[in-house]
């Protein structure tokens, strides 16, 4: 036993010397893979920065993660729909309103499809939008602060899945419902679904200067499942396309009953026509309850407003606005190529891709070549709108993205592969396996008029043996392929957080130069901010105690507080007086029933503490801020409820 230990330690020691002193002498024996071109392609040397940002949705984490390409390094998790103790989002008094809904405080959601704002169909990097699927919501994130600035709830929707895709000038962000429901909601037998439920396709307008969202109208469609969507662009700008499934309108055992029809539809919606109709007074106002939550960068505060009404539109009242394009086999992804000419429907139970032609669709509409109607909405003839079929040989096509050279890349879930094919000729050029069961894929700008076709990221649903095992639950795997050549080349594999459904990417230079470094203290309009340490104070208002506190490396002002009593509700309003990049201060106090706060330079955040025990209780900075970080602490003296100790506060006295 003893010998064994000696031996082990010697081995570890030797390994340490080699690893810590490793330099030129070991080069020849370095790992073979590190010398290959794949490694060079993804290697971003220490101190160097990535070429692209990639924003991956977190799925059931409710948040959005930021990665670099090609390194696959994760830079940040942006809290959106979920409470996030790391920063205090959803815990601080300022951010709790962001998670308010008509169902009350909902601290979680299922975040699916991020989409970066566009101008003329090209990424402009102002904002990124993402949908909450479970309690239907759409969020807008500012791409200079990387903070969630706005969340709007979507009434009459249930399962906000065909969302949050934007039109080519960010006129609208759409929110189509995956689950149809009674509109308005009412108590009725489930099996009376057919013909009675509705599917709301919501068009949320985006104010161009600040990005503020407002529901412009809701199109009340037949009770199908509206699965995914994408906007027209170029010639097809003004249209929006939604895939549907469950046109059977089944309400039980859906995996069988929703797969009966050979073809479901892609719904083509001429939103410009409906916008005109609405602007001319069309539509019906309907009572509704939904929350609209806005975060103000000046006051560092979110406010929630309950809205009471929504404008609904019956598609039959706007002739020529909505058509159905028959699309085989329960289509999932609905993707439009950079020219706006082709609409690709990926029939997930099929081996083939169906490509519709926008021009042919317009001709068919003009010629009124209909193949019947569904609830009064004209169905176009499949053959009349079909541009081509991609015979891929793969199974379970889900999503398609595009490069700038006329190629499309489609994921196949069942056969675990990415297939590259050519628009127009529909021939398959290349196919590469993914690991495993790929869902979405993303090319930066790959769903805009101007893709940057250098890399494609495949986001998989199953990880299995790709990484060291971590018990039954593992992060999902993603793969990066170099697509700059004719053939795709797998160059990297990295784990992702939560379950990414879709992602959006853009060149780094679009965002990096304007990324905010600090909030200016003299712009801080928070009502409880202290602009200088002499304003730091403690005030009592009945049982409420407000502590106006400031921080700078490395002390709190004040750091000794007395006169607080058991049963008080203590508000710590912390203003970070730093004005230097990347110097947040944290705040936490023993027994706090929420999370810490992480306060950025120039920002004010508030945490509530309800002391339950008499004593002298410490608080401290949670973010290692300087060499004297460990000294950044203070005490609150908590006296019995009936004590007559006066409020007092001090620093260095």
């Amino acid at each position, binding site marked *: 036993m003893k010998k064994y230990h000696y031996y082990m330690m010697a081995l570890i020691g030797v390994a340490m010397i080699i690893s*810590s002193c490793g330099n030129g002498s070991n080069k020849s024996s370095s790992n073979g893979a590190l010398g290959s071109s794949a490694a060079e392609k993804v290697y971003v040397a220490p101190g160097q920065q990535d070429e692209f940002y990639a924003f991956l949705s977190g799925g059931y984490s409710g948040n959005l993660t930021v990665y670099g390409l090609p390194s696959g390094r994760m830079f940040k998790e942006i809290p959106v729909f979920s409470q996030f103790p790391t920063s205090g989002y959803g815990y601080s008094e300022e951010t709790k309103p962001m998670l308010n809904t008509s169902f009350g405080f909902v601290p979680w959601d299922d975040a699916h499809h991020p989409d970066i704002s566009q101008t003329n169909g090209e990424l402009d990097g102002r904002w990124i939008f993402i949908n909450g699927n479970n309690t239907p919501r759409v969020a807008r994130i500012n791409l200079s602060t990387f903070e969630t600035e706005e969340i709007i709830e979507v009434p009459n929707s249930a399962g906000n899945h065909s969302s949050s895709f934007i039109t080519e000038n960010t006129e609208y962000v759409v929110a189509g419902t995956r689950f149809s429901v009674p509109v308005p909601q009412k108590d009725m037998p489930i099996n009376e679904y057919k013909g009675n439920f509705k599917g709301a396709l919501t068009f949320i307008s985006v104010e161009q200067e600040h990005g503020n969202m407002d529901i412009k109208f809701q199109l009340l469609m037949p009770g199908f499942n509206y699965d995914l969507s994408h906007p027209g662009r170029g010639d097809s700008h003004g249209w929006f396309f939604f895939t549907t499934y469950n046109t059977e309108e089944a309400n039980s055992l859906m995996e069988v009953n929703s797969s009966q029809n050979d073809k479901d539809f892609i719904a083509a919606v001429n939103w410009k026509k409906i916008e005109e109709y609405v602007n001319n007074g069309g539509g019906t106002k309907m009572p509704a309850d939904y929350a609209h939550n806005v975060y103000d960068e000046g006051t560092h505060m979110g406010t929630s407003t309950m809205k009471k009404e929504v404008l609904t539109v019956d598609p039959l009242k706007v002739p020529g606005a909505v058509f159905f394009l028959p699309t085989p086999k329960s289509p999932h992804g609905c993707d439009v190529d950079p020219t706006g000419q082709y609409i690709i429907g990926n029939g997930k139970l099929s081996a083939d891709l169906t490509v519709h032609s926008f021009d042919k669709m317009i001709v068919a509409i003009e010629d009124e070549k209909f193949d019947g109607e569904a609830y009064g909405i004209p169905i176009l003839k499949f053959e009349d709108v079909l541009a081509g079929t991609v015979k891929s040989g793969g199974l379970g096509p889900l999503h398609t993205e595009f490069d700038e050279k006329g190629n499309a890349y489609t994921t196949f879930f069942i056969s675990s592969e990415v297939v590259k094919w050519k628009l127009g000729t529909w021939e398959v050029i290349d196919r590469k396996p993914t690991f495993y069961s790929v869902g979405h894929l993303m090319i930066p700008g790959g769903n805009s008029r101007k893709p940057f076709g250098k890399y494609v990221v495949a986001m998989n649903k199953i990880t299995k043996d790709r990484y060291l095992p971590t018990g039954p639950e593992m992060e999902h795997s993603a793969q990066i392929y170099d697509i700059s050549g004719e053939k795709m080349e797998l160059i990297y594999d990295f784990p992702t957080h939560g379950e990414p459904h879709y992602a959006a990417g853009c060149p780094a230079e679009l965002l990096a130069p304007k990324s905010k470094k600090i909030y200016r203290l003299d712009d801080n309009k928070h009502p409880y901010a202290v*602009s200088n340490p002499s304003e730091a104070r403690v005030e009592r208002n009945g049982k409420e105690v407000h502590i106006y506190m*400031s921080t700078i*490396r490395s002390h709190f002002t004040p750091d000794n507080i007395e006169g607080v009593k058991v049963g008080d509700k203590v508000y710590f309003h912390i203003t970070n*007086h730093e004005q*230097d990049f990347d*110097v947040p201060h944290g705040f936490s106090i023993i027994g706090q029933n929420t999370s810490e706060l992480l306060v950025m330079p120039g920002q004010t955040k508030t945490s509530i503490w309800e002391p339950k025990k008499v004593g002298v209780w410490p608080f401290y900075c949670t973010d290692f801020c300087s060499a*004297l970080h460990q000294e950044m602490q203070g005490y609150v003296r908590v006296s019995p409820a009936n004590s007559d100790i006066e409020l007092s506060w001090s620093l260095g006295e």
Partner: protein
Amino acid sequence: MKVNIAIYSVLCAFFLFACGGKEEKKKDGFSVDRTKSTEKVEETTPKTSEVPASQRITLDNKGVGQIKEITLDPEIDDAMVTKGAELFKTNCTACHKTDKRFIGPKMEGILDRRSPEWVMNMILDPKLMTEEDRCAKDLLVEFNGAAMSNQNLTVEQTRSLLEFFRTL
């Protein structure tokens, strides 16, 4: 077994040191002498002064940074002073008091000890100054390692602060 671990730890520590890049001599034993770090500085550089950095007069030293030369008008600009006093309140009082040492040095008489250029450079880029300016380096040590925060002020704002300091 315990002995093994002890030997192993010492060995590992030795290796880590050996690879650390700097060729510092390993000192034996254990010490709580807090002034050791200053002693070390003095070992490598010749002793220039026994006077603590905060009391040294370094009027010839302009510091390191963008301010190379400024000329002060004999007359004090009151408007600038008002501006500077306000900025001092919002951006400096967390660490500096005018009349006594706090986290950092007192501001009274600062211009009797430091050149105007040095003061402005220190405000505009404290990190660079503590890296490259001897006096700033020593001040950091004297003031307990509490690094001065960069408050991202403009040259104009910094100039106002300087004008305010002239009145102290």
